[in-house]
């Protein structure tokens, strides 16, 4: 049995007096694709953001690639290994598409201009928009922006990719182009944790689906089993609303 690449034990996180995470235990293994679903406010995004410590947690353990996240010194090194894709893309509007994919390579990975550019061009090819390299993010559609955001994260050669509702801000006809890129990534063996209600994607790519509610993991199983034969009443109630 291989070691889990993400180990989460008894994770607690509060915003003021409200508890966002109420003791979450989760192991993710290398190459695994995990999809997290759940009602809004259930702590899905917070859990994801704790994995690269965009949120500071009060209690519990998060180990990424064997390194505990509680010490501050290694946080930038860990973040470079963990790619993150946001609901609102968060591309850098003052940089071109190509520069968006290059900037962290140069600043964090200390790659040369030529190296970074070659990697960026290859990744833009991979996400299917090499022709947009000189455009600014404001000139792209939402789907294109999200694909650039994926390329930007991949440029750091991450071991893990986190997706925080990557298609929720997209028009319906653009969702598939982003999901296609994510499907390809899953096929390539990337470890992925995806917060998303795209059942099609979960069925096609995920090894495991997790339902969260009120800061806890309610149920987890292979997607087909979780979606078709849920054991918990809470899962049934939630699925009946979104299916």
């Amino acid at each position, binding site marked *: 049995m291989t070691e889990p690449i993400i180990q989460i034990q008894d994770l607690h996180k509060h915003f003021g007096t409200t508890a966002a995470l109420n003791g979450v235990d989760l192991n993710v293994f290398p190459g695994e694709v995990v999809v997290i679903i759940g009602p809004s406010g259930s702590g899905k995004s917070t859990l994801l953001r704790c994995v690269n410590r*965009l949120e500071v947690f009060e209690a519990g353990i998060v180990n990424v690639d064997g390194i505990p996240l509680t010490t501050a010194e290694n946080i*930038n090194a860990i973040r*470079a290994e963990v790619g993150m894709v*946001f609901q609102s893309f968060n*591309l850098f*509007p003052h940089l071109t598409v190509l520069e968006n994919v290059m*900037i*962290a390579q140069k600043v964090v990975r200390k790659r040369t201009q030529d190296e970074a550019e070659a990697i960026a061009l290859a990744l833009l090819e991979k996400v299917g928009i090499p022709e947009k390299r000189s455009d600014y993010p404001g000139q792209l559609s939402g789907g294109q922006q999200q694909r650039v955001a994926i390329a930007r994260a991949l440029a750091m050669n991450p071991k893990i990719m986190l997706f925080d509702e990557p298609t929720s801000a997209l028009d319906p006809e653009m969702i598939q182009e982003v999901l296609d890129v994510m499907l390809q990534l899953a096929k390539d063996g990337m470890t992925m944790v995806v917060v998303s209600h795209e059942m099609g994607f979960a069925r096609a790519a995920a090894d495991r689906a997790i339902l969260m509610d009120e800061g806890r993991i309610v149920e987890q199983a292979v997607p087909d089993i979780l979606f078709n034969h849920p054991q918990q009443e809470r899962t049934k109630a939630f699925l009946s609303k979104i299916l």
Partner: protein
Amino acid sequence: MQLRKQLNRVPGYEVANHRIDRWWWLVLAVVGIVTALACIQPDPYWRIIRFVADGIVVTVGVTISAFLLTLVVGLFAALGRLSKNNLFRTITTIYVEVARGIPLLVQLLFWYFAFPSIIHSIGRLIHFEPFENYLANAYLMAILGLAFCYAAYMSEIYRAGIQSIPKGQNEAARSLGMSKSQAMRYIILPQAIKTILPPVGNEFISLLKDSSLVSVVAVADMTRRGREFMAAYFIPVETWMMIALLYLVMTLIATRVVSWIERKTQTEER
């Protein structure tokens, strides 16, 4: 628009794609008035201009030096106010409140008259020769005084600009492994600078005008040279009208340059 397109096809009549700012005519008009006055009535107008010419250089020099210093000090003050470190935040907040709460003229008088006295006293107290014989340089003190006050205002402009950048930008930068300062330098500041250009330009123009206050602390700027001319020849109307026109030329040019930079940075994106 249609005319512009047609003109572009006629050789020799190509209209530049970046439109020329229409308000340049106002600059030309004021420059025209100054030139006309100087040509039609060289005495006294051309004499005034020649007399205050070195003062024009001083005014421009003091303004630009103080402004550059303001940009640097203001940025550090803004970063201090945004810092999580209590000490930095307290120091910079006190600085901003003090510098904004005292009239600029009083500050300039303090830097030129009181500050050297304090240095002398300290020098005598600790028997430190260079301090005891410290001679205040009027120009240096004037530039420091202007920058000290203006950097406080500038820091608030920087702060507003930095805070106007959505939180997601910082999160994206940090999630790529950038440190706090790298995110600030490569992601936040370049965007913030674009949004704060108009108020920063206004600060430059205010500073240009307020630089006339340094005339009271032994700096021979345009205003002081004007006073000297008036004292010598006693023609107040002509003197102050010419000085006013010269300031107006400078501020109008500065306004046009600021709006040109603004439009240039705005059209580069989207």
